[in-house]
């Protein structure tokens, strides 16, 4: 079938009329597409951000050995030597409590005045930062060093990484599960909407067939109707996600300066584009099902 502008306009007009005629059902199916994609988009952004944080942590996997505050300078030095003598240790760095305070101040940037007055009564401990040759040596070394005298606590990024990974696993599972369920519901609702459209226009369809309309000509307005419903749901979902996410980014930026959300365009654009595409696919799928089941031409 030739795609003349007149024909395309005709199909668009018919699809639009159908959507208006179906009113509430069209609204409901678009709404479910929107909710499904909102959940999908939300969990996607969540997972994206946790991975961002994990990457940050993993890039500096080192063991922080916090010392007790009552350890004498001589013992502090002895501990450093003992660490350096371990074969798996690559590098040991000593950070005095004064240096630690400076680092925190730098991290906070222009909000450093929050820490004003802390120099007199510094709550931060002396710390050794230890790098191992290989990442899989971290856990065993950390466990051993924790038992040494004078050591208050041993921390390493892996713990946080593992906890974050557990959280993302769940987020991914719940998000994808809910998304599949809602996507199914959305396809079903769109299929029902299209089915009603076909039913409302069965007379017109029979006349079209009598006049020699091709199958695609008869089907196009209905397929287009589903596409419009799905696309609208996708665009609304993206709009809502953007309206929620960007304020969150700027709020977190000023409240927690060291915790930065992903806001690069080249990362977010595929996410939002994907949501719209996904809505389009849901709509096409729903109308395809109905057109093939209820429009025997």
């Amino acid at each position, binding site marked *: *079938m*030739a795609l*003349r502008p*007149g*024909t395309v306009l*005709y199909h668009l007009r018919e699809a639009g009329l159908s959507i208006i005629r179906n009113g509430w059902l069209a609204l409901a199916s678009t709404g479910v597409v929107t909710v499904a994609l909102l959940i999908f988009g939300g969990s996607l952004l969540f997972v994206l951000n946790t991975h961002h944080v994990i990457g940050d942590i993993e890039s500096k996997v080192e063991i922080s050995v916090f010392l007790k505050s009552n350890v004498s300078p001589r013992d502090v030095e002895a501990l450093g030597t003992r660490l350096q003598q371990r074969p798996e240790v690559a590098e040991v760095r000593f950070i005095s409590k004064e240096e630690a305070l400076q680092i925190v101040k730098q991290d906070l940037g222009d909000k450093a005045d929050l820490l004003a007055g802390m120099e007199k009564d510094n709550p931060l401990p002396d710390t050794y930062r230890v790098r191992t040759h290989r990442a899989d040596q971290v856990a065993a070394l950390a466990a051993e060093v924790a038992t040494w005298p004078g050591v208050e606590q041993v921390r390493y990024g892996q713990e946080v990484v593992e906890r974050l990974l557990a959280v993302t696993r769940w987020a991914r599972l719940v998000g994808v599960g809910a998304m599949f369920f809602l996507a199914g519901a959305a396809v079903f609702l769109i299929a029902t909407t299209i089915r009603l459209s076909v039913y409302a226009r069965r*007379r*017109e369809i*029979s*006349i*079209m*067939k*009598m*006049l*020699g*309309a*091709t*199958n695609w*000509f008869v089907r196009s307005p209905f397929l287009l109707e589903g596409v419009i419903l799905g696309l609208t749901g996708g665009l609304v979902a993206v709009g809502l996600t953007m309206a929620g996410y960007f304020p969150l980014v700027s709020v977190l930026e000023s409240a927690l300066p060291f915790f930065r959300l992903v806001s690069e365009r080249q990362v977010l654009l595929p996410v939002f584009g994907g949501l719209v595409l996904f809505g389009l696919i849901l709509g096409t799928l729903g109308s395809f099902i109905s057109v093939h089941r209820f429009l025997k031409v």
Partner: protein
Amino acid sequence: MLQLYNVTKIYPNSIPALLDVSLRIQRGEFVFLVGPSGAGKTTLTKLILREELPTRGQILFNGKSITRLRPSEVPYLRRRIGVIFQDFRLLPNKTAYENVAFALEVTGASRREIRRAVPAVLARVGLADRAHLFPAQLSGGEQQRVCVARAIVNNPLLLIADEPTGNLDPENSWQLMRLFEEINRGGTTILMATHAWDIVDQMKKRVVALSHGRIVRDEQEGAYGYGA
């Protein structure tokens, strides 16, 4: 132009609607298909339009087998056959003009072709001044003439009319028949299923009589006949 060879149509759980029907219609003929309700007239038109497939037998239209058409070829068959029904089947939300234009739109005709062809065909059926009225604003006779315009706007080889005068008064019926004769003179073959014995008797055309799914009579310049 239209040939049926030993065509039988049996619907599930029913007596045969058509039984071993063979029929030859030449280009330019005007044929009445008569017979009581249930004789198989409507089944015959459905087979020609390939709304149904025959159980047995072969149908050729313009030298091509209808029964062997692929589904994708069916629309192109129907574009060469105009159809008119007793109940008009116009779209109520479109004007007379738009209803006729619709027949061209579904074939993907350009706007220019539509603007050229529709007024011409409406003038031909005598509705030039009624073009922008909706079916509800037109009389039964006028509505049926819109249907005729829609059926012939594609210049079909064959015009099938299934009891076209069934809902018309005698005057409108005769007006329609004069229109059919004129269309027929233009070269279009006409196959008209009807109960209207007075029309059949006066028109003196070929008459094919069906009874219980069989052709019982086929006469040139025939009459409706009695008991058929």
